[in-house]
């Protein structure tokens, strides 16, 4: 096979090797920067795909009565919106950042397993393609919510096996990506950098990687049982055969709860990287940040049933999961307080990355507060499956995870491209986003408390007003994000943008190895490990 031969030839001249020419470069690349870029671009596209579905949801909910879509299709939109956003947008975006930044942050030449790195990316694409294909199948795309609860999910038409296999592919992709990241962090670190000298983004990804390897197989197992229940006569989730539909929920949430922390821990890491730079101060409480992250990850494995307070668990279960969930507020609080203390008595400036980070701290805390309220089991009997929950998790996902992704994008793009993005436009993008995201999601608290269930295509008329507000917010927020695309493309093209200095942000080199590299970063960096490790965060 020619592939084998060409691999061989290249090993000989690999020092002066730049990117290959033509579009094949992107398909066969093993370079962490190329793969990082592909992850990020793919995630951005998926953000718009998932967002478009969200806008369909919000358009239908603009007014009471059915206006645009059939209920079944509405449910498909809810399901696909969530799956695309979670598995296609937010998770890959963080993997993209990991690919780009981790080798540069720890002084490594590349990822530990570059070929597998390529495969993780393409498996992701394969998984999402397979998921997207279900939209065009007889019986429609899965419409049982992203949680895929049986027995309802077993009523899916032809899409069911495709959905199951897409979860398998996405799982393989995530596991391979996580293994790669862990191996890179543990094995490729500059010899001079000890574990407790790693930037927090690297720490949070180390822990996230562990979470991913532990949970993705669990999700794969759960959907495999759905498949056999539907096609091979097993009765895992069927009481008549001795099974239990609730068993699926236990397995799903054993995956699902750590999964939401997979989307927030790297967020914490990027925030901990950005805030000190713009406060011109070292991060407050580095080691407690590390321990808090680890505790959150540990606790995430023993709280899953807070999603299931109403399924009829024995009282001991209700209480255990309530207590365990409440405790998470403590390590998360430590993080919030540490960020605040980092800002305290700093010399702050407010460029776009910092603006997004501050908004993240505030709005994530709001989302955390509602999470804490829902963790009180008896009260969750009222909140469960209402828009209060929709508001909760969008606060923790959109103005938290997504905002930090934007922040990270603005923060590092000068280093990646060698060009400075348009700060004025970026700030406008921030203000539009920050205001509209609250118009979008804050009213959903009211709706939920007033009794509006989630996953409904139509609602009683007393919910009209706030739904209208929310929908208006959604459209403003959605279209504001086109600005981000514009700014990014403008920066990559670079014609009207100033050149980025090697320093980019004032004194940034004190905060991380990546800032010791030139802008734009060369295709291969850290062929030899760096001698000096920035120790600003101590």
């Amino acid at each position: 096979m020619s592939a084998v031969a060409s691999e061989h030839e290249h090993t000989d001249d690999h020092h002066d090797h730049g990117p290959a020419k033509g579009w094949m470069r992107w398909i066969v690349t093993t370079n962490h920067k190329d793969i990082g870029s592909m992850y990020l671009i793919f995630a951005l596209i998926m953000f718009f795909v998932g967002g478009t579905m969200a806008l369909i949801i919000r358009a239908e909910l603009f007014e009471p009565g059915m206006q645009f879509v059939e209920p079944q299709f509405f449910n498909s939109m809810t399901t696909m919106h969530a799956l695309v956003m979670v598995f296609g947008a937010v998770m890959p975006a963080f993997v993209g950042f990991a690919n780009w930044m981790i080798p540069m942050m720890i002084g490594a030449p590349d990822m530990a397993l570059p070929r597998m790195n390529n495969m993780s990316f393409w498996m992701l694409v394969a998984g999402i393609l397979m998921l997207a294909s279900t939209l065009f199948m007889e019986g429609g795309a899965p419409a049982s919510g992203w949680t895929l609860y049986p027995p309802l999910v077993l009523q899916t038409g032809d899409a069911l096996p495709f959905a199951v296999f897409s979860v398998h592919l996405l799982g393989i992709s995530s596991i391979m990506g996580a293994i790669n990241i862990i191996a890179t962090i543990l094995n490729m670190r500059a010899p001079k950098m000890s574990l407790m000298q790693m930037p927090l983004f690297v720490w949070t990804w180390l822990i996230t990687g562990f979470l991913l390897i532990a949970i993705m197989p669990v999700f794969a197992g759960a959907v495999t049982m759905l498949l056999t229940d539907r096609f091979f006569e097993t009765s895992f989730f069927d009481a008549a055969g001795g099974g239990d539909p609730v068993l699926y929920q236990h397995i799903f949430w054993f995956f699902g709860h750590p999964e939401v922390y997979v989307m927030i821990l790297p967020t914490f890491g990027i925030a901990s990287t950005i805030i000190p730079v713009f406060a011109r101060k070292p991060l407050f409480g580095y080691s407690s940040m590390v321990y808090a992250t680890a505790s959150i990850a540990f606790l995430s494995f023993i709280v899953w049933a807070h999603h299931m307070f109403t399924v009829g668990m024995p009282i001991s279960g209700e209480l255990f999961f309530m207590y365990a969930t409440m405790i998470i507020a403590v390590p998360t609080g430590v993080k919030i307080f540490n960020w605040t203390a980092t800002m305290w008595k700093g010399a702050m400036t407010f460029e776009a990355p910092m603006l997004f980070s501050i908004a993240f701290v505030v709005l994530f805390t709001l989302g955390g507060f509602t999470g804490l309220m829902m963790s009180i089991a008896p009260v969750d009997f009222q909140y469960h499956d209402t828009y209060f929950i929709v508001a909760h998790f969008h606060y923790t996902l959109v103005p938290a995870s997504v905002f930090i992704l934007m922040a990270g994008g603005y923060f590092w793009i000068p280093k990646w491209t060698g060009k400075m993005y348009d700060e004025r436009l970026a700030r406008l993008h921030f203000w539009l986003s920050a205001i509209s995201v609250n118009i979008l999601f804050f009213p959903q608290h009211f709706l939920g408390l007033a009794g509006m269930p989630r996953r409904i295509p139509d609602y009683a008329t007393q919910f009209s007003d706030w739904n209208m507000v929310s929908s208006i917010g959604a459209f403003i927020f959605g279209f504001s994000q086109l600005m981000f695309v514009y700014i990014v493309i403008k920066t990559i093209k670079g014609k009207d943008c100033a050149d980025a200095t090697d320093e980019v942000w004032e004194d940034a080199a004190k905060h991380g190895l990546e800032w010791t590299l030139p802008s734009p970063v060369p295709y291969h960096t850290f062929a030899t490990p760096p001698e000096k490790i920035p120790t600003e965060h101590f």
Partner: protein
Amino acid sequence: MKKTKLQLVYLTLMMLGLKSVEASDYTLNLMKGVTKTSNDIYDLHMLTLWVCVFIGVAVFGTMFYSIYHHRKSKGHKAEQFHENTTVEIIWTIIPTIILIAMAIPATKLMIEMDDVSESEMSIKVTGWQWKWEYEYLDNGVHFFSSLDEKSNQARKLGSDIDPRTVDHYLLNVDKPLVIPTNTKIRFLFTAADVLHSWWVPDLGWKTDTIPGFINEAWTLVEKAGTYRGQCAELCGKDHGFMPIVVIAMDKPDYELWVKEQKALAQAQLAAADREWTHEELMTKGKSIYTSSCASCHMDDGSGMTGTFPAIAGSSMVTGDIGNEINIVMNGQGMMPAFGSMLSAADFAAVITYTRNSFGNAVGDLVQPSKIKSLQAELVSANDDDDDDD
């Protein structure tokens, strides 16, 4: 749409704080409800809310103070401290204490809610796609409850009916659940097909209904009145359209109602024994079809490709009547078994109707008395089944 424009103006005013939300049955906050449980929940909700507000004000206050005063543009010089074990211990311990303080009342309430003992009557609730079945275990009253006809018309895509003109749009049913006040009632929840969740906010809890399992919950309503809720677990396409209405009546009224129900059941049995005309069956059949079948097979009998077969032109429907009766009575796959759900007259009517509508023109009919005897067989067969297990 003029209505929409007005609404927009109104909303802008509302957002500017110039106009408050008026709808009387609408609040921004959790409702207090009408049971002790729901009131306790409300109190606990307010407690945690205020705790969060308090912590929020403290944290954000500090942060914004710092953002305002410690900015470079004001010439503030960064200090370089980055650790302080004492404050870190303090801000670990204080939240822990707050949490413990919240956990104590929560635990008490949880235990109270879990205790179904000493209840005075029991109602079994079964969730169906997309209706509720209620069985009074103490007096044998038994019926189904689904979305009322008006809402059902208005909620169709392209119905051109303004939902605001419909009374209690989507929150009204054809036959509400009636309960006595000042009585501790135990509910037993289960489902026939997929998961549902029974939720009336005023009562203060929701409970999932799970096929093959029973979940318990209880309530004690002191105030007579009508309380509305909805299914709260995604259960397929019409999940948004299976409301719950509970009417709490004072004991004597309730007793009267029970008597009425029993008389009604008797009348239904009697109705099955007389001879019905084709017209009668067709008229009744149409209404039964819309309320029981149209959610899957569609109003015009066209079904939904891939999931629900069409009734119009179905060889099953236009073929041997015995086969059709059989599938409707016993169900098959996702098609529910209607044998015990419909009265004999309703059953005969809907069968007759499907065979002579949507372009089907078989011309035959089936008499309720025939169905009645079939249903009797079904019941005894089921009993036999149980004995085998």
